[in-house]
């Protein structure tokens, strides 16, 4: 009995909790991608770098707060800096829309052209972020490190295995729930949200019923900026901030959005968790869990790790390929908001 409990604790500590946190971060990122796809109808390759830009502003403001001695008690100061990051990112994406994307919208360009344009924006953002903060790792998490520590948990339960929950993991999940709830409330209950959904469903009908497309686009970018900054900051708090890693996040984020069905917000969330759980379970070394569960003589010699962590991109890619082959519209029907 104790062995089973120990196995469960190990499983929770190394698989469940990290996967839930990572899944929430991916889900927020995928929501941004899927909103752009639903309303503006293109795959935004600049999204990873938009996240990097937002996080960078948050980090800079955090440092400024720290130098002034402002802190958020046990919570990371970055949460206080978040609104500044969102505001700066909103200015950036709406600026890029005015200067770059709007022209192609007016000329009714193909989605592929938008995609290539977003590659150009990606280049600019890449340069901008590296120019301002540099290409290196930045750690900006402060406050309490843990909600539950390994030692305390062992004392509390008397088990051999400990369970730790990092503050950043707790914050990630709570923030993700709040943000997603707010987003769905906005999309389903408010006039602007409804007009966004109408515009995504059928552009011509929406225009006929008097919806102002520029207004819809404006609010979409605003929401995307907030989602990208929050997702980026949570990821940065949980792991660390490195511009190139954010660029690489594009792949799992796109995989999440496509697995769920591009353009479908509910699907983006589901896809985020599917990708995160597969990535973590496939790259985790199962030896400890199995040793607890099976009789002693069956205990495995190796690490029982399906793939080394360097191949985590392969996991999201394989899932993506499977979904493309079997159900190209995604788990939830894609292309509706």
């Amino acid at each position, binding site marked *: 009995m104790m062995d089973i409990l120990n196995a469960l604790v190990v499983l929770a500590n190394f698989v469940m909790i990290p996967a839930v946190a990572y899944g929430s971060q991916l889900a927020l990122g995928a929501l941004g991608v899927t909103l752009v796809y639903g309303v503006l109808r293109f795959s935004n390759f600049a999204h990873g770098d938009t996240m990097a830009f937002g996080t960078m502003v948050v980090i800079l403001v955090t440092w400024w707060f720290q130098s002034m001695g402002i802190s958020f008690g046990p919570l990371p100061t970055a949460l206080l800096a978040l609104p500044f990051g969102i505001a700066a990112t909103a200015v950036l994406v709406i600026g890029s829309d005015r200067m*770059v994307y709007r022209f192609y919208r007016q000329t009714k360009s193909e989605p592929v052209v938008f*995609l290539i344009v977003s*590659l*150009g924006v990606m*280049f600019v953002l890449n*340069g901008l972020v590296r120019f301002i903060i540099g290409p290196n790792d930045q750690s900006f998490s402060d406050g309490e490190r843990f909600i539950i520590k390994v030692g305390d948990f062992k004392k509390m339960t008397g088990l051999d295995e400990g369970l730790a929950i990092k503050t950043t993991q707790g914050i990630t999940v709570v923030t993700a729930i709040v943000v997603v709830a707010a987003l769905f409330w906005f999309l389903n209950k408010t006039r602007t949200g409804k007009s966004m959904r109408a515009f995504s469903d059928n552009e011509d009908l929406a225009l006929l019923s008097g919806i102002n497309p520029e207004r819809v686009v404006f609010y979409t970018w605003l929401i995307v900026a907030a989602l990208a900054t929050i997702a980026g900051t949570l990821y940065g708090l949980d792991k660390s901030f490195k511009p190139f890693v954010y660029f690489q996040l594009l792949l799992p984020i796109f*995989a999440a959005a496509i697995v769920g069905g591009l353009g479908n917000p509910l699907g983006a969330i589901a896809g985020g968790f599917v990708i995160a759980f597969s990535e973590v379970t496939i790259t985790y070394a199962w030896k400890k869990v199995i040793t607890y569960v099976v009789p002693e003589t069956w205990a495995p010699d190796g690490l029982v790790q399906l793939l080394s962590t360097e*191949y985590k991109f392969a996991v*999201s890619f394989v899932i993506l390929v499977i979904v493309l082959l079997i159900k190209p519209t995604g788990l939830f029907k894609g292309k509706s908001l």
Partner: protein
Amino acid sequence: MSDTQKTYALFALVAVLILGTGFVQSWNTALFILNMGLISAIMSLGVNLQWGIAGLLNVGIMGFVALGGLATVLVSMEPVPDAWEAGGPRILMGLAVGAISIVALVLSYTKLPKGWVRAIGTIVVAVIGFYVTRSVLDPAVQAVEGVNPALTGYLGGLGLPVLISWPVGGLFAAAAAWVIGKTALGLRSDYLAIATLGISEIIIAVLKNEDWMTRGVKNVIGIPRPVPYEVDLQADPSFVERATSFGLDPMTASTIYVKLGYAVLFAIVLIVLLWLSQMALKSPWGRMMRAIRDNETAARAMGKNVTARHLQVFILGSAICGIAGAMMTTMDSQLTPSSYQPLRFTFLIWVMVIVGGSGNNLGSILGGFLVWFLWVQVEPLGAALMDIITSPMAEDSALRDHLVKSAAYMRLLTMGIFLLVMLRFSPKGLIPEK
């Protein structure tokens, strides 16, 4: 000015820029720009085939280039006998088992009756195949990687002349392109983009982590060269004599001679590929491809198999990128998996194609040279500019220090703005499609 004159003028401009570099900076730099320009031109020729002529979006160029690099190692490095003895046959067996299990997986998916039987059957086959492959492969991999890891620790290659690796690199890239094309073509265009982005990251991950094949991050150095070594040239009295008769010291003369040798080889490949592409473009096949690009539905109504044609052109374009990748690794004479950066090997090639003129082979070649020249030269220019901007600031100012250090990232910014401005004001590029 007619179109032809404009084309000549633009190519003359590139020649002037490269020659100017030779006169102002050094001939070594100029030849380096020329050689990498030739390689970049080949890559953008391949991408132009995919995007310009067929309208396919490939953002995994880096992966195909890296496969070309892998080909040079596997073809031209000397085999490591100890490693082969330690686990070579078993690795081959493991790979064969892996291939068989993939075939079994595909068969079980296509042949089993739909529904639960198929779902469970496929999963069972996948799991068994994975474990059998790993159990054959893993011990052999460990044994091979244990053989003198500081110097070898890998199987080596076949020890064949390095030039053979160029077409082999093309074949490798073509094989990868076939797999991607089979899954993602025929779906929405964005899916191909995302799938290629994914495969390129995975190829790089494989190169970095499969030490038995590529030595991973330990890099393979000293890949044989198709041209003589500088040291040998400097030791050759007749070469030294000729060099002094030109008024050059043997050191510089030997490096220039080697680089010129590469330039000739690369130019031959570029000219052959350009001729082939031009012929393809003018042929009925080329007209069909452009018809498909411009109106897929109409082409389909005319009985053209759009997906098959797309697959064909996607494989061809990727193969050209693979050839270019093999050439690049040959010139570097080393394989450094960590040097493959998507911004440099995927997105920069895109800038070349778009700036040069998508749909026009000459345009994409021009873009290859011009953008590569800018990529190399913007960095020192940016640094110089930053020095001027920051000169009024105090010597020990932290901001000044930061700005000067960050000048290197100016070129990402410049390239992005360059691309956006071209797309906005001259979307057809410098030499538009006819």
